[in-house]
């Protein structure tokens, strides 16, 4: 009895009952749990009174950032952000390995990739017109992250998207605007390394890892931290932009192993992977 395509098939029998019971228990537990939480918006809740006040009250003084989220993100909890950069870098590496480089199986049907045009001439033209603006806006988001929403990550996403939008719209036969997967990867690696480099530099000057305050940039500590935060954001920007390009190149454009290998300057003969 083979499953009909499009039909939802659930498990039968005991596992199904047990699964249903588990879900019911989870639902019950969650509902019971939320009844016990502090009221939404309670200014006296522990979350509002315990650790966070410092971020609000001292962020500008200690880190020089008006946007408290940026201050926490890049400075107080810069280590999280380093991890976050590593996560998206991992995704980029992963897609590159899985889609472009990993052993291509003979039994796999060749992917169509974006061999034909995705859209219409209107889309094509608007993509070309939009691209510079997207890129500039991305830079603005990066630089202005200190005082307004945004920062390295959002800017990076926008920048990466801007780089690949033409390629995305025009397909493989379009103009080779934007970096190929290898160049994008180099950009991403450089971004991650720059972030780590700032951290190591802080160590070299006697502080803890990512302790920007020790960097010899002159001025008072908050200003130094502000500058370093900008550097970190730029590093994240590069890492994310590169990774987004890699993601698009592998998932959307369907770069195959041979192609990536060629761009990597390797001499893997075509067909040896198939």
């Amino acid at each position, binding site marked *: 009895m083979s499953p009909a*395509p*499009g039909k939802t098939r659930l498990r039968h029998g005991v596992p199904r009952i047990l699964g249903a019971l588990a879900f019911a228990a989870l639902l019950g537990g969650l509902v019971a749990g939320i009844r016990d939480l502090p009221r*939404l*918006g309670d200014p006296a809740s522990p979350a509002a009174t315990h650790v966070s006040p410092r971020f609000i009250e001292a962020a500008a003084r200690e880190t020089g950032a008006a*946007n408290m*989220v*940026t201050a926490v993100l890049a400075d107080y909890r810069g280590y999280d952000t380093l991890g976050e950069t590593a996560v998206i870098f991992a995704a980029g590496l992963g897609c590159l390995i899985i889609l472009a480089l990993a052993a291509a199986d003979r039994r796999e049907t060749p*992917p*169509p*990739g*974006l061999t034909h045009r*995705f859209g219409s001439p209107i889309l094509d033209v608007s993509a070309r017109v939009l691209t510079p603006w997207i890129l500039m806006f991305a830079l603005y988001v990066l630089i202005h992250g200190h005082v307004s*929403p*945004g*920062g390295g*990550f*959002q800017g990076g*996403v*926008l920048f990466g*998207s801007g780089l690949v939008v033409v390629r*995305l719209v025009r397909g493989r036969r379009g103009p080779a605007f934007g970096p190929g997967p290898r160049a994008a990867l180099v950009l991403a690696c450089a971004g991650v390394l720059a972030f780590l480099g700032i951290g190591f530099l802080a160590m070299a000057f006697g502080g803890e890892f990512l302790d920007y305050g020790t960097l010899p940039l002159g001025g008072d500590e908050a200003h130094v931290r502000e500058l370093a935060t900008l550097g970190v954001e730029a590093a994240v920007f590069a890492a994310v932009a590169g990774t*987004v390009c890699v*993601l*698009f190149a592998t*998932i*959307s454009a*369907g770069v195959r192993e041979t192609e990536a290998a060629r761009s990597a300057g390797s001499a893997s003969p075509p067909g040896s992977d198939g």
Partner: protein
Amino acid sequence: MIPPPGVIGVGLLAVMLVAATAALFARDLLVAAALFGVFSFAAATWFALVGAVDVAFTEACVGGALSTILFVSAAHRTRRWLD
């Protein structure tokens, strides 16, 4: 000062719930991706509503745009994705 999300917030959450349910059971991938986009933008709006402007911006960039585009472009390369 930002007022409590109130009725608008509840409405947005309801939109999210409906859009998510519809996306999960949509027959066609493009419909599913579009509904997922709606879900993400509703979420982003709700985030903005509770004052999380950074998160709202990111969700709009990432959830609303990047994820949706990735879904669509990945799916574009094959058919019968939702069988």
